[in-house]
């Protein structure tokens, strides 16, 4: 019995040891150890030597915050650096690598070089498998000195994420227009186009940014050994300092029921000053206001119309610029309008009699949106309200039977109206 117990005890102990060893191996396998070596200064400037250790220290400190990797303490690397002297050339060979492996017990070496000037430094970061001397992943970062550390840390973070797992996929991002800044999970990784960029499998938030264009963002699932592609088209922002010419047509809906809703044709030229837009506009409309009355036993319909020409100055504020398809705006305007009253009369050579002419001050407000922005063109829709402080006199004709000609009955009203319509804008 005791012997049996001893046998079981030995087996259980062996099992526990195996589990511990396997668990440790698993932990070790999922958390590779990275040693960050000094970077090689290829700038030719002694004054930038400090970046060699400063960048490495910064990256090392950043990576040490990750739970997915273990970072070799930099103070333990001095002997390796001295003996291997990788940083002098940025080159390495299997002998150096295997020596580094023995001395650091690291799985991956992070090393690289930098060149350029403080205003434009290019940093190359490589992750080298310490067993095979193969480059597992690499990134090129170009930045001003003031941004170099942030960019380098971001790039090293992505490299570390890639090398810490075997579940890696690839991402390709090409944008229209080119040279958009690309952010992955909040870290800038470069400019478009981004080709076959290695990423750990899983969901990643991709964002593309370019000055003068509206940002775009997407969440993509990267599969192990899979490829994902994203080709966003960034619309231009409407807050650029640029000029525009627009033509449009709206339905003019008068407040006076005697006037018939009619089309009004508009053409405007203006300029954007960031979110403010100033423009001048000319408009024309033929507004029918036919009159029907009884005359000598029959119903007479007189063709009557206004020819309305307007000149207005507009000030518009762009309310919101963050939407891709719609850019809403609101504004006010004031200007001059000439309203000429005509009626058909066969006694006149051209068959039309000019009755009255009014010079009007018009004031109003407008609310609209630019939509479907495509390149230098966009459509717009908008509504307006026009108010005219001056009263307009309209002659209403009445029959006096067989006692003679028609008599006029003067009526006064305000030429207020609403317009609803849209058109096309061209930017230049």
């Amino acid at each position, binding site marked *: 019995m005791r012997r049996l117990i001893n046998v079981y005890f030995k087996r259980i102990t062996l099992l526990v040891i195996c589990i511990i060893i396997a668990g440790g191996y698993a932990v070790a396998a999922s958390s590779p150890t990275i040693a960050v070596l000094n970077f090689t200064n290829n700038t030719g400037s002694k004054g930038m030597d400090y970046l060699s250790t400063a960048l490495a220290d910064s990256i090392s400190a950043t990576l040490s915050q990750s739970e997915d990797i273990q970072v070799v303490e930099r103070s333990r690397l001095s002997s390796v650096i001295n003996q291997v002297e990788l940083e002098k050339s940025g080159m390495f060979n299997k002998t150096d690598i295997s020596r580094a492996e023995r001395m650091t017990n690291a799985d991956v070496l992070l090393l690289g070089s930098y060149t350029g000037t403080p205003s434009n430094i290019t940093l190359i970061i490589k992750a080298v498998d310490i067993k095979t001397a193969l480059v597992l992943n690499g990134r090129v970062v170009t930045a001003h000195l003031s941004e170099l550390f942030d960019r380098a840390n971001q790039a090293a973070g992505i490299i570390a994420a890639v090398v810490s797992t075997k579940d890696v996929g690839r991402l390709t991002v090409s944008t229209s227009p080119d040279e958009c800044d690309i952010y992955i999970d909040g870290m800038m990784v470069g400019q478009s186009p981004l080709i076959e960029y290695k990423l750990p499998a899983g969901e990643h938030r991709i964002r593309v940014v370019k000055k003068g264009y509206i940002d775009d963002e997407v969440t993509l699932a990267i599969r192990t050994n899979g490829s994902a592609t994203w080709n966003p088209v960034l619309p231009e922002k409407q807050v650029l300092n640029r000029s525009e010419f627009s033509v449009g047509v709206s339905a003019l809906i008068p407040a006076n029921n005697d006037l018939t809703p009619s089309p009004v044709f508009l053409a405007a030229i203006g300029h954007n000053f960031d979110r403010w837009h100033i423009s001048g506009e000319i408009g024309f409309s033929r507004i029918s206001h036919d009159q029907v*009355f009884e*005359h*000598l*036993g*029959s119903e*007479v319909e*007189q*063709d009557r119309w206004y020819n309305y020409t307007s000149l207005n100055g507009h000030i518009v504020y762009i309310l919101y610029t963050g939407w891709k398809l719609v850019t809403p705006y609101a504004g006010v305007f004031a200007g001059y309008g000439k309203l000429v009253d005509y*009626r*058909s*009369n*066969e*006694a006149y050579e051209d068959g039309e009699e000019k009755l009255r002419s009014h010079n009007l001050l018009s004031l109003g407000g407008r609310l609209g949106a630019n939509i479907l922005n495509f390149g230098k063109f966009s459509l717009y829709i908008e509504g307006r309200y026009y108010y005219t402080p001056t009263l307009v006199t309209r002659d209403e*004709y009445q*029959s*006096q*039977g*067989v*006692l*003679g*000609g*028609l*008599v006029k009955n003067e009526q006064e009203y305000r030429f207020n109206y609403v317009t609803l319509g849209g058109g096309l804008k061209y930017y230049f």
Partner: protein
Amino acid sequence: MKRIISILHIAVLLFVVSICMSCDVVPEDQGPVIFDDVERIELDDYDGTRFTFDVPNGVSTVVLGVFHNTIQTQGQTILNEVDFAGGNRTGLPGYVKGEVNKSALYEYDPGTKDFDPTLSYNTNGSYWWAVWGYDSDGNLTHASEQVNDTINF
């Protein structure tokens, strides 16, 4: 010198004659039209039975009016409505374009300012009559002079 003066006389005479010929003068036997700012309608005749007149193009409604006294107007309005005895117009029974028989005259109704086709007018007397016309938009565009005739029914 005399010859020059004679030539000048002849020239002046020719000038005056040409001016007179070019003037749109109203013939002596025609009176002025009864309304302002209208074109003339030519009256043909009243032969004791029918009133005849020309109807110009563009006139869609013609009115023949018969008055007890001379027709008084201001602008395009008849002032002496009380003298309006009767008449006929386009659209009423008995009206033929350019012609109205005296038997087709109707009484004037001040309420409707139109003729009443249910009441024939047949009182003998001396009357002033004229014709005027409207276009399709109701505008008064044409009128005649007024003439005096005795009408016996």
